[in-house]
Every structure is written in structure tokens, then in C-alpha cells.
């Protein structure tokens, strides 16, 4: 059971991090013509994350603070790692300052914190 919860948390983090990376990369695109196409993908990742969140108790209230902080820490680490990899290759216009703000909003939406 503990193992199962650990796996669900991993999946939750994976999908939220995908949504945040999507959102930040989408904003790095200068051309507005194709931007709207990617909003749906971000929403899709959040919808999947919601399904995993519902399987983690307590589902209807926020998680215990220690647990929530641990999730946030892992989430930030994962998003930063993904974006830093791109930056190291010369990818421009990636706004890293938005990571924490995006993470807080998504974790609140999913009743993690």
C-alpha cells in the first residue's frame, strides 16, 4: 500500500511537472499563431494529475504539510532539471522565475497544499 502511494505521488509529480514545463515553454514561443495549440496539452496533463490526486488520501483536503512540502520540493527539482537541460543547449526565453509561482498554483488547484 505504501509502495502504491509512493508510485501515485510519483505519477502526480510527473504530470504536474509536464504541465508546468508545457506552460513555460509555450510562453517562450514568440509566435502567437501556434501558442493556443499547447494550452490544451497543459490542461490535459493537469486532468491526468487530478485523477492520480484523487487516489491519494486525503483526497478532499490538502495533504499534511510535511508531505506537501516534499512533493513541492521534488516537483521544483524536476521542472528545473528539465528546463535547465534546455537552457544548457542554448534555448532562450525560458523564464525560470515563473516555476515556483506555477507550481504553487497547480498544487493549490490539486489540493496538495
Amino acid at each position, binding site marked *: 500500500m505504501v509502495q502504491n502511494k509512493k508510485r501515485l505521488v510519483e505519477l502526480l509529480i510527473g504530470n504536474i511537472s509536464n504541465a508546468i514545463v508545457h506552460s513555460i515553454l509555450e510562453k517562450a514561443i514568440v509566435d502567437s499563431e501556434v501558442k493556443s495549440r499547447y494550452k490544451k496539452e497543459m490542461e490535459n496533463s493537469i486532468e491526468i494529475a487530478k485523477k492520480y490526486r484523487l487516489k491519494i488520501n486525503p483526497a478532499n483536503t490538502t495533504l499534511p504539510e510535511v508531505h506537501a512540502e516534499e512533493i513541492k520540493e521534488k516537483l521544483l527539482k524536476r521542472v528545473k532539471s528539465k528546463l535547465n537541460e534546455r*537552457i*544548457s543547449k542554448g*534555448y*532562450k526565453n525560458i523564464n525560470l522565475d515563473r516555476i515556483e509561482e506555477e507550481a504553487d498554483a497547480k498544487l493549490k488547484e490539486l489540493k496538495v497544499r
Partner: protein
Amino acid sequence: MAIIAKISKGTLMDQIYIPKNRIGFDVGSYVRISPAVAEPIERFFFHNIRSLEKLKLKVIDDVFSEIEKIVVVYDNIIVTGSFLEKGFNFEDIDIIVLTDKKINSAIVELELSKKTGIKPHLIFLSNKEFLKGVTNIPAYEMMLAKCITKRRLVYRIERKLDHRILDLELLKSENLPLNFDSLNGKEKYNLTRNLIAISLFMKNEKLTKEAVDGEISRIFKIKPDTIKANMLQKKSFSEIFRKIYRKTYNEVLNLIPNGSKQKKAS
């Protein structure tokens, strides 16, 4: 239902040629010929479609008429996707409407569902968005490789490899290894197809459903139908998928023009 065609001169008898892709007018059926008064000629434009079930042509005719009624000012209407594949194994009908007007897609979707009984998947694009998509997004090129359009489709594909767009397109497919256990077969197929289409797009290879399916079979050593049926061996499939994903991802990042690098986050 009427078709307007021209009488052409024959040796012993004159004749009227009618298109093979048509609604009604089955071979062997009797028809009445009468002189045409100035009526609009109703025809579609077929792109890489050899034949289509008559019932589907009727649906497409309904789709075009219904959209015309609501949207009024448009540049083109494109029907694409699994609806155009042989048989009736489709879940929805993919429709792209090229218009610069702001349209409430919910209303159009509702009317189309009522009229055809099929769930429509509608995308409204301005001409600018469409042209940008056609040159930059592999999925758009795939959609246009096989389609039926209301008006003649005039465009020229000159692929542009934009690392930012391809990165975002590729990111979608990351969902497959991540959510393998919760995705159904169709979702897995779509995410695999997306990955392979991007890979072929970057190699400047042909981008059609057949080409992508062929590449899936070659790489994964399974038929695309096995993926659609969700009969995959998780370990072996995920391993190959991750390898191809990583390779394609590196190729996308290699497209980044050399420039000053941003400061990394700690």
C-alpha cells in the same frame, strides 16, 4: 440530389462522365437527364483518397452545409483523420475550418452532432495560423496528407524546423511512458504516432499515415493495431519508446542555434 456534368462527344454515342467519388448515382441505377439551368456545381476536393463509402460522402456533405450555414465567411473546410480511413472504425470526425472570424465552436459542434450523429472534433484556424502550422507542425502535415476539402486547397509545404515548436510537440509523447498503465490503446497509438511523425519530419521524410505506421512497425516490431488494441508488452515497448524519444529530443535540442546561454536555475 443532382450532379451537373457536361455531355461529351463519343464515336457511336455521346456520354456524360461523372466522378467516381459521389453521393448516390450507383452504377446500374437509372437516372433522368435534363438540361441544367445555372445551378451551382457541388463538388469536393479529394487529397490522396482513392475511394470513400457513399455514406461518409453524405456525412461530409452535411458537415460542409451545416458549417457554411453557421460560419458563412470562411476560406476552406477540411475533413481529415480516421473518418477517412476505410470502414467505420472511427470515434469522431476531424474538421478544420479556416476562417479569420471568431466563432463559438461549441455551437457549431452541437449543430454538427445533431445533424450527423457523429462527434465532431473542430479546429478553427486563421489563415496565418494554418500556414504557420503547415510548415512547422508535423501533425498538420499528416492531417493534410489525406483529406477532403470544400474548396481547392492551395498551399506549399516548406518544412521549417523550429526547436521550440518541435520540443512542445514532442513533450506530448512523454505522457506515454509516464502514464502507460492508465492510457488506452488509442491514446498510446496517438502518442507513438506523434513521436514517429516528429522523427520523420526532422529527417525530411514523407509524412503520411502509411509512412508513420510503417515506421512504427519497423521500429517497434509490432503492428500499429497491436498498440491500438492495447496489447503491448510494457517493458520492451517502453524501452524502445524511451530510446527513440531521447534520440528525437536530442535532435530537437541540437536545432537550437548557437547563442548566448541563459543562467541556469539552482
